[in-house]
Structure formats: structure tokens, C-alpha cells
């Protein structure tokens, strides 16, 4: 082993074979280009390039919605637990007052105040429970978006498998079977609007829906 090899063997070897590597990459690129052209896949590849950023924004949308839902649920649980703790403490306090002097507890209004307090607290706890239930709507919205991303991934996989099959060397030992047909994505319905900013074709909320329908006389 000489000094040059031990200092930087990779660069030394790379410098020695560099023209060949470039030539090989060039040939592979050309071969891939020709194969895609031959298979009529160039348009589809262009399509994937356009859809991948969309898939990325859809995944971000899922992360945002699930994060917001978790945050909402935890906040509401905290508030409901605080209400619950308050009622439990008040129940103990009023219980002690009644045991000590039942007549005074009623006469001084402690019992009535407690009942009013319980009614208000249970109303608030009920609101928290409703909001916790509503937070679960992320399941529907993210489910639709996930289905679109899965369809895109399956479509790309199918096309890549076809490409492999059709460009495999004729003497390949293992013959790949034809891929299972992928359920065709039907883009007629757009699903949840992932990016509404700057998109005049979609509404951003219920008030816009109401305004649109009102402007049309509905």
C-alpha cells in the first residue's frame, strides 16, 4: 500500500475511472429515456413529478389535522377534568356542612348554590364531551386524503413494475409476473381541499358556502 492510496483511496480511484462512470451514467440515462419513450411512459413520469408535491402537501395536511385533533381533545379533557375535580371537592364540602348542621346548610343557601354549581358544571362538561366527539371528524377527512396518496403510490409502483418487466434482459432467470390491476383513481371528486390559499375554485369555510348559495338565489 503506498501513501497516495492510504490518504484518499476513493478520490484516487474515482479520478482513475471517472470517464467510464460518466459514460455509464450517460448510457443508462439514455437507455431509461428510450425505454420510457418506448413504453409511452414519459407523460406518466411527468405526471408523477407533478403529483408527488401534491402527495407531500396531502401528508402535511394529515399531520396538521391529526395534530390539531389531538390538541383539541387534550385541552377539552383538561377542562372537563378540572370541572369534575371542582364538583367532587364541592360535594365533599357540602356533605360536611350538611353533616355538621343540615338546617344551616339549607338556610344559608349552601345547598342551593351547590345545586346551581353542579348544573352549570355538568353543562360545561357536556360541551367538552361534544367537542371531543367533534374532534374525531379528522378520521373522515384524513381517510379520504390517505386514500388518494395510497392510490398515487400504487399507480407509480404498477408503472415501475411494468417498466422493469419490459426492460429486463431476455435471459433473465426469474420471470416477473404481471402486476395486479390497481383500482383506478377516479378524480371526479376532489375530496378535502388541502390547499385553499389562493385557490378561487374552492371555499374556505361554511360562510363562503352560504354566500355562494345566497348569491345564486338558493
Amino acid at each position, binding site marked *: 500500500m503506498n501513501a497516495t492510496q492510504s490518504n484518499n483511496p476513493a478520490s484516487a480511484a474515482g479520478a482513475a475511472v471517472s470517464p467510464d462512470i460518466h459514460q455509464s451514467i450517460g448510457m443508462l440515462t439514455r437507455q431509461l429515456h428510450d425505454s420510457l419513450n418506448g413504453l409511452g411512459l414519459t407523460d406518466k413520469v411527468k405526471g408523477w413529478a407533478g403529483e408527488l408535491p401534491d402527495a407531500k402537501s396531502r401528508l402535511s395536511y394529515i399531520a396538521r389535522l391529526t395534530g390539531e385533533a389531538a390538541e383539541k381533545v387534550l385541552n377539552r379533557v383538561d377542562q372537563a377534568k378540572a370541572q369534575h375535580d371542582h364538583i367532587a371537592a364541592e360535594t365533599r364540602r357540602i356533605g360536611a356542612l350538611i353533616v355538621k348542621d343540615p338546617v344551616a346548610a339549607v338556610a344559608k343557601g349552601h345547598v342551593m348554590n351547590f345545586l346551581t354549581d353542579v348544573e352549570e358544571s355538568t353543562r360545561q362538561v357536556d360541551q367538552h364531551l361534544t367537542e371531543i366527539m367533534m374532534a374525531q371528524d379528522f378520521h373522515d377527512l384524513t381517510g379520504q386524503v390517505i386514500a388518494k396518496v395510497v392510490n398515487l403510490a400504487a399507480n407509480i409502483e404498477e408503472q415501475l413494475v411494468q417498466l422493469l418487466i419490459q426492460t429486463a434482459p431476455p435471459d433473465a432467470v426469474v420471470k416477473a409476473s404481471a402486476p395486479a390491476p390497481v383500482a383506478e383513481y377516479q378524480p371526479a371528486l376532489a375530496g*378535502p381541499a388541502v390547499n385553499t390559499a389562493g385557490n378561487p375554485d374552492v*371555499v374556505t369555510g361554511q360562510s363562503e358556502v352560504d354566500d355562494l348559495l345566497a348569491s345564486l338565489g338558493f
Partner: protein
Amino acid sequence: MANELRFLVVDDFSTMRRIVRNLLKESGYTEADEAEDGVAALQKLRASTFDFVVSDINMPNMNGFQLLTEIKKDEKLKHIPVLMVTAEARKEDIVLAAQSGAAGYIVKPFTKATLEDKVNLILAKAGLK
């Protein structure tokens, strides 16, 4: 009166069906059945009596637009108000729903107040409340 009205909630996501049913119940509308797509909904509508349909749009087998069209061309069903509750936020879909005879349109995610307001408004217009 409100308690006697019978609702059909149509959505392919069971979570959303439960949410809508629970919200209707909290608003006093306790009689509700559910269907997972337009085909199942039509079967239930033709087999029983309903006063109100709350339907999603993006569903397998038969989507909400197709269900709405089927309801509106059926002499026995066309009087039933159909409220679309959907994630479809494109203006063209909203206009199409209205032109196809939808009584109202709510975009997801929505609030309890929005659903309650729309249902009450539609019922009042239909003379059912």
C-alpha cells in the same frame, strides 16, 4: 314534533355517521338510521319512511350526487329534504348540489351549531317544524 322526525345519515365513514347521529340527538332529533353509501341509502329510503336525509358526497358504489338525483326523480322520495355534509369544497360541486335539489350544503369540518342551524332552517322551510 321534532322527536318524531326520522333522519337517515349517509356516509362511508362510520365515525362521521356516529358524530352526525349524536349531534342530531343532542338537537332533539332522536330517530335516526344510517347507511354507508348511496345504494344502501336508497334501499332504506324505499323500504321505510324518512323525513330528512343527511348525506356525504364522496362515497363508493353510489356517491351523494347520484343519491340526490335518484331521490329527486323518485315520486315517493322527492319531497324529502337532502342536506349535503361533505369535504367537497369546490364551488362547482356546491352549485351542482343546489341545482340538483339539495336543501343545504355543509362543508367538513363543521360545528354542532352549523348542523343544527341548517337542519332547523330546512325543516322550517319544508313545513316540518
